[in-house]
């Protein structure tokens, strides 16, 4: 069984009466790769700062290895950080920046030389030793920051969007590299990103946050397949989120039709949110036995087409490898396992409708944009 290393207990952070973090409870195991995922301003960096020792929670406890560390200053914690804006020392060159932690720890110079060289190789910056920090590109600075933290072989590494400034290719390479280092050295990684793909690909555990509140903690599969509420369903991947009514266990009513599903434990006739992932919908010829709608938009995405289908005024996003013309009338079939039922939450009705999809298109593809605030057009199907 994995051993618990860090625990946040009812941590609240307030700045001038504004609640930034609201009773955060989080357990992090030794050697775990945990990712904090959420839109900008949701409190990811703040959570990291608590763990790193740069911020004391207004209330609540922080434990490291079972010991309360609220008052332990950061230089005494066995934790290193890769800061969101790198925070490299401008008066030192690349070598001296990376060697900084070892010099503070009074490591011998020959060993420092060796370990810095190793790190430079790791982040592909060999030959940059003498470079000034100001003469590096954003991505190079980011890699120096990674090397500067990793060289200390910390027990826990906090990474605040460490790959944000890298291009796609380098980003993928570094993702693999970081993951490999984490496995190899057995370091606990607490990783911050607002890129859900990165979070799903790299983590053992994903923590989805919004507005200072943890929305869901789970494995990447859990948060993708079993989102707890509309926010999580929408933030992670694409989702059609529909209003439904739970008729009985394993039976849900949508669009006046009964659908079999696999969820149970709801009250009879309880209103629920239903999540259907765009890739889980099968397209069939239109007939009376299936829910039918009209295709209103098609976009080629390389591997598949994104098509928008209008069902009684509610627009779905469906991904299919077959081309369907705009205007064609199609039916859909959904397997019971592909229907995911969620309890109603404060986020119900705010997400999951693709009526304004074409306008939103670019935003959806840009992970840096918060679209949590926009409730979208609300169109309900009257049953």
């Amino acid at each position: 069984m994995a051993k618990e290393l860090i625990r946040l207990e009812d941590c609240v952070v307030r700045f001038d009466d504004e609640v930034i973090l609201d009773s955060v409870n989080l357990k992090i195991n030794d050697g775990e790769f945990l990712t904090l995922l959420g839109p900008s301003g949701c409190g990811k960096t703040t959570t990291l700062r608590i763990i790193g020792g740069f911020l004391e929670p207004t209330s609540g406890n922080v434990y490291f290895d079972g010991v309360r560390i609220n008052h332990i200053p950061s230089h005494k914690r066995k934790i290193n950080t890769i800061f969101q804006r790198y925070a490299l020392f401008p008066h030192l060159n690349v070598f001296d920046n990376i060697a900084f932690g070892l010099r503070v720890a009074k490591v011998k110079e020959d060993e420092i030389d060796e370990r810095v060289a190793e790190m430079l190789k790791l982040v592909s910056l060999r030959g940059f030793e003498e470079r000034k920090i100001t003469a590096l590109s954003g991505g190079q600075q980011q890699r120096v920051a990674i090397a500067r933290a990793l060289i200390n072989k910390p027990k826990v590494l906090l990474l605040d969007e460490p790959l944000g400034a890298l291009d796609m290719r380098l980003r993928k390479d570094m993702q693999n590299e970081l993951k490999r280092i984490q496995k190899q050295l057995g370091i606990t990684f607490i990783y911050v990103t607002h890129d859900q793909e990165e979070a799903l690909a790299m983590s053992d555990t994903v923590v989805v946050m919004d507005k200072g509140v943890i929305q869901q903690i789970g494995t990447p599969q859990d948060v993708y397949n079993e989102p707890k509420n509309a926010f999580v369903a929408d933030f992670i991947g694409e989702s059609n989120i529909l209003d439904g009514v739970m008729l009985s266990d394993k039976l849900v009513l949508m669009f006046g039709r009964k659908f079999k599903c696999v969820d149970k434990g709801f009250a009879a006739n309880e209103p629920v949110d239903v999540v259907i992932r765009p890739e889980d919908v099968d397209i069939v010829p239109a007939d009376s036995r299936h829910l039918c709608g009209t295709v209103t938009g098609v976009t080629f995405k390389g591997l598949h087409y994104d098509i928008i289908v209008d069902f009684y005024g509610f627009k779905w996003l469906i991904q299919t490898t077959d081309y369907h013309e705009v205007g064609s009338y199609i039916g859909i079939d959904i397997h019971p396992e592909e229907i995911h039922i969620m309890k109603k939450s404060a986020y119900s009705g705010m997400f999951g409708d693709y009526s304004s999809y074409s306008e939103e298109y670019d935003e959806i593809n840009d992970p840096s944009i918060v679209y949590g605030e926009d409730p979208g057009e609300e169109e309900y199907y009257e049953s």
Partner: protein
Amino acid sequence: MRVRGLASPYLAWMSIFIILPLCAVVYYAFTDSVTGEFTLRNIVSIGNYWPILIKSIWLALVSSLICLILGYPVALAIARAKQSRQRFLILLVMLPMSMSFLLRTIAWVSLLEDTGIINNILGKFGISPLPLIRNNGAVVLGMVYNYLPYMILPVYTVLSHIDPSLIEAAKDLGCNRTQVFLKVILPLSVSGIISGVSMVFVPAVSTFYISKKLGGSGTTMIGDVIESQFKTAYNPNLGAAISLVLMVMVFICIGLMERFSGSEEREALM
């Protein structure tokens, strides 16, 4: 082109009030006071004033150093205060500057005199008057008091622009408070120290009023000599020559300091 046009009033101002007087100084320095002919005599006779010149430089250096030792912690404390508090504290630092320099110096005279306030109070306790005035110490005190804000302000400006995340990074990498200071804050504030030292040193080395009021016969400074050449000895040519030499030396000093500070620190400020 427009930019140059906008700068022209400033250029005119510069040439009338800075370049022209400089030319006048050079002209006087190399001409004879009676005949008005070209001569090197003024420059040569500065030799007589070497000891005074050296002493002035020495006192100015000591004052700059004391200003640095006193001013740096003050600047650091202000830079670490709350944002809203900082402006008020800076205002406090600048407050004495709004009072006449002469008045401030005279105030010290009445404090330090043998019959002054301090010795009066000491006398009440039966302590005989201390020689607080008319010595090097009093001159240095006067200079430190007058020029301290010129040290605090540039150092504060540099310190307050250091990215707080650099300090966090240093702590993250294992530095305690002393190490954070020595390894990050101090090296990043070198440019502020350099400009603070220059801003204290330059006026201190050429000051004449402070030494006249607070110093004794042995603490005549080069500024006093220059002043007397114009006012009492009626040898403006010699005065100009000394000024010129002093100016050249100050420029060399500043140039050297800039050299040593290197270009790195300036980049660090960006």
